[in-house]
């Protein structure tokens, strides 16, 4: 790990690729488990992933990971080749999943800049035992030999091969001896030239002098093909005994065959001098086999690109910055195009150019937005593992159904919903679903179903978590709410919906016993808080005996909203269009005052309470007569109201900016963020939920 030729960027790529690989791996395992058997495709995929992890881990000098992956690969190699009839697939999945957990833990350590020092021995032993049992159960000795044949063959070659050179002609002076080794790598291990360089790198400090052929392994990628064909020749001059040197070469990873011999000093010097000339030979050889090799490479790149090389991963912070800059640019463009200095000038060419500019900026804006959109699939797939682990632990049979996982949501939002979703899923499996016996008794299928569904609805994404379990228990909810003093009105007067809504209150948790998975007192209120952070909400619906459904409503993006700009006094505000039902003037509508002096507006027989924005925010304004201003009817869940403002300025797409942290900490009611208007001034974005709370 500490080797200096491993730089950070390589490590970054390694971590990224490996985490992607194990994600795929996890999915493959979970998929297979669902169908009850490992398909040939799945086995091949697992084999391939393990192979990749093995290779890259070895390159990063992560011995424990490489070893683990190697053993897993062996295991799946056996399964693939021998196609054993009797396989304990459940145990196999457990084994692979714990392997995944181990790798994940190690990756985390590396990310935290700690040494990846996890001990994989237990796992390795478990895999070995499993493989033994598998072989024993299938009585397949023939295959066993096959499995280890690669290693056995390699082992044979480790024996010293006597060559004519070997006859102790003249030992080099000062107790130094010269050796030459030719390394042949396993077929398909790839990047032979880089691996060869690793060998040379490790040799430094061990030897006095060395040469190697081909010599230009770092600069010339063609050498990889040459090495895989003709081997990699290293000559060393060292004071170490032959045994030690041989062991060193034998320990090289992915070694298929090793030729090792002693040289005399003269030959060493001669070959060292000649090493440089190999360069041209390699090129010639590569050119000679150009057609053939070219084809192979073309295939390789095709494979590589299909496995996601067309994608790059970008730091989200950079995207945020880009987003901000684009917002700036749009505003700057407005400042140029609508510059007061241009007033009254006939500028046809300028206007034309400005229109072109506008077109481009708005396209860029759309593009940047779309870049930030990520499908929910990854988040959803993570839930599969949770359901699987829980169903094992709780001995409930659970099926997780995913619908619409390709729905796209802003990256920021995805980050915030993973925890709430996990919480809801755990609740559904732990409390929602009954045990198998209870289900059978109730005449239901033994296997419970949890459905995770996402779909687009206008400017929102709905995510539903449904179970077909026992449903919420109204009596229990009420009695618990009573106990904690959460009831605000008599239980008898509450509608079903209001009762269910109680579970979202802080300090409410219905589960009697605390289990490993849920019911630690941090209840649904945490879910609500997490969702509110991204402008989402949650509601619940339940039918006793048939199940419970939680619906999360999330905005597509937090970054840009369609807003209506309005003024109160000198201040300007923006209200999301989605919150506006309509805007009316007093003229045709009736003003009502109740006995407390509260003002209400009667619109088509419906009565809406009036909130004067200038009073609410204590902003001085000259428009205090209700007839002079304008009313905005705001549709907030079940509590519509109308806002009284001075005037409307017009509709505009605005880039939402968060308020500075200092102000966020003060929790200003009714303000959700701010945005920059065309003239560079700031408009505060209203948060309609803040007016009724």
């Amino acid at each position, binding site marked *: 790990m500490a080797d200096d030729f491993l730089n950070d960027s390589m490590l*970054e790529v390694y*971590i*990224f690729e490996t985490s992607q690989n194990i994600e795929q791996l996890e999915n493959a395992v979970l998929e297979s488990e669902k169908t009850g058997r490992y398909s040939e495709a799945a086995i091949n995929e697992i084999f391939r992933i393990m192979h990749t992890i093995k290779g890259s881990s070895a390159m990063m000098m992560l011995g424990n990971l490489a070893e683990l992956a190697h053993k897993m690969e062996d295991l799946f190699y056996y399964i693939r080749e021998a196609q054993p009839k009797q396989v304990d697939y459940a145990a196999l999945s457990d084994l692979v999943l714990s392997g995944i957990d181990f790798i994940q833990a190690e990756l985390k350590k590396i*990310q935290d*800049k700690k040494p990846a020092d996890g001990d994989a021995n237990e796992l390795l032993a478990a895999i070995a035992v499993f493989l033994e049992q598998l072989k024993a159960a299938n009585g397949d000795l023939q295959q066993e030999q096959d499995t280890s044949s690669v290693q056995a063959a390699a082992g044979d070659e480790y024996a010293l091969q006597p060559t004519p050179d070997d006859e102790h002609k003249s030992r080099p002076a000062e107790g130094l001896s010269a050796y030459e080794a030719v390394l042949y790598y396993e077929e398909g291990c790839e990047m032979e030239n880089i691996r060869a360089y690793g060998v040379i790198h490790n040799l430094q400090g061990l030897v006095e002098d060395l040469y190697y052929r081909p010599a230009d392994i770092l600069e010339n990628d063609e050498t990889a093909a040459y090495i895989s064909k003709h081997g990699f020749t290293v000559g060393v001059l060292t004071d170490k005994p032959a045994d030690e040197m041989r062991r060193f070469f034998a320990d090289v990873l992915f070694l298929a065959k090793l030729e090792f011999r002693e040289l005399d000093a003269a030959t060493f010097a001669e070959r060292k001098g000649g090493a440089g000339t190999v360069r041209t030979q390699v090129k010639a050889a590569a050119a000679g086999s150009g057609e053939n090799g070219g084809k192979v490479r073309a295939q390789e790149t095709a494979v590589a690109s299909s496995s996601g090389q067309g994608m790059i*991963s970008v*730091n989200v912070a950079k995207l945020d910055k880009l987003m*901000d*800059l684009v*917002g*700036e640019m749009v*505003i700057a463009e407005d400042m140029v195009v609508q510059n007061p200095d241009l007033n009254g000038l006939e500028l046809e060419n300028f206007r034309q150019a400005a229109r072109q500019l506008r077109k481009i900026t708005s396209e860029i804006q759309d593009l940047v937005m779309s870049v930030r959109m990520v499908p929910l699939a990854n988040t959803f797939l993570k839930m599969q593992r949770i359901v699987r682990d829980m169903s094992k632990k709780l001995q409930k049979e659970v099926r997780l159904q995913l619908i619409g996982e390709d729905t796209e949501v802003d990256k920021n939002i995805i980050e915030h919903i993973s925890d709430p979703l996990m919480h809801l899923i755990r609740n559904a499996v732990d409390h929602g679903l009954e045990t198998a016996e209870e289900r059978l008794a109730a005449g239901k299928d033994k296997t419970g179903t949890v459905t995770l569904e996402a779909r687009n609805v206008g400017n929102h994404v709905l995510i539903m978590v449904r179970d077909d379990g026992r449903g919420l228990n109204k009596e229990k909810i009420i009695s618990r709410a009573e106990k904690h003093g959460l009831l605000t009105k008599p239980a008898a007067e509450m509608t079903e919906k209001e009762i269910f809504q109680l579970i979202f209150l802080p300090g409410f948790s219905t589960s009697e016993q605390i289990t490993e998975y849920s019911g630690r007192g941090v209840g649904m209120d945490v879910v609500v808080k997490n969702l509110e952070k991204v402008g989402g909400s949650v509601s619940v619906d339940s039918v006793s005996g048939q199940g419970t459904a939680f619906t999360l409503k999330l905005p597509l993006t937090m970054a840009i909203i369609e807003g209506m700009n309005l003024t109160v006094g000198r*201040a*300007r505000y923006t209200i999301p269009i989605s919150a506006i039902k309509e805007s009316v003037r007093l003229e045709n509508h009736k003003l009502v005052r109740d006995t407390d002096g509260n003002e209400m507006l009667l619109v088509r027989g419906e009565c809406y309470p009036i909130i004067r924005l200038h009073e*609410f*925010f*204590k*902003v001085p304004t000259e428009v205090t007569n209700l007839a002079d201003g304008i009313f905005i009817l705001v549709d907030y869940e079940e509590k519509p109201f109308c806002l009284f403002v001075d005037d409307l300025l017009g509709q505009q797409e605005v880039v939402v*900016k*968060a*308020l*500075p*942290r*200092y*102000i966020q900490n*003060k929790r*200003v*009611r*009714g*303000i959700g963020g*701010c945005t*920059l208007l065309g003239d*560079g*001034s*700031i*408009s*505060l974005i209203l948060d309609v939920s803040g007016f009724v709370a």
Partner: protein
Amino acid sequence: MVDYVSFQGYEEEEEDTLRGKYLTFFIDNDSYGIELRYVTEIIGIQPVTEVPELPDYIRGIINLRGRIIPIMDVRLRFRKPFREYDDRTCVIIVEMSGITMGLVVDSVAEVLSIPDEDIVEPPEIQKNHNRYVQGIARVGDDVKLILDCNKILTDDEVEQLSQL
């Protein structure tokens, strides 16, 4: 996914060269200083957007090249009467522990190097009054009050309680 820890060494170095340097400014005829390492820039007064429900010393927010920054009037923070802003009025942008804030002062004076031994702790006679002062510096014949930036930015629970 990957945290970048570069530039750390660079910042440490920078901090070293800023040590012992103070930006001094005036409120009325009193001279104050704040540690230069918290200061990111100094700008003239800009149009301020008021935000409701905030303490009076938070004047609102400004748009500084696309960044939204809250503005605190240091006069009001020190319970001095409000004074109309003029062309000498400056906003000192400070940044510490993740919070960026613009401090409105009557005028900015200069950057001074004040050795630690010239700064003494404020006497603890009236606890309430030197809450924001972390030291008193002698520079020639003058006395400058060195402010505790952190307290100015974060210490408002006390204030809220006393207002109740």
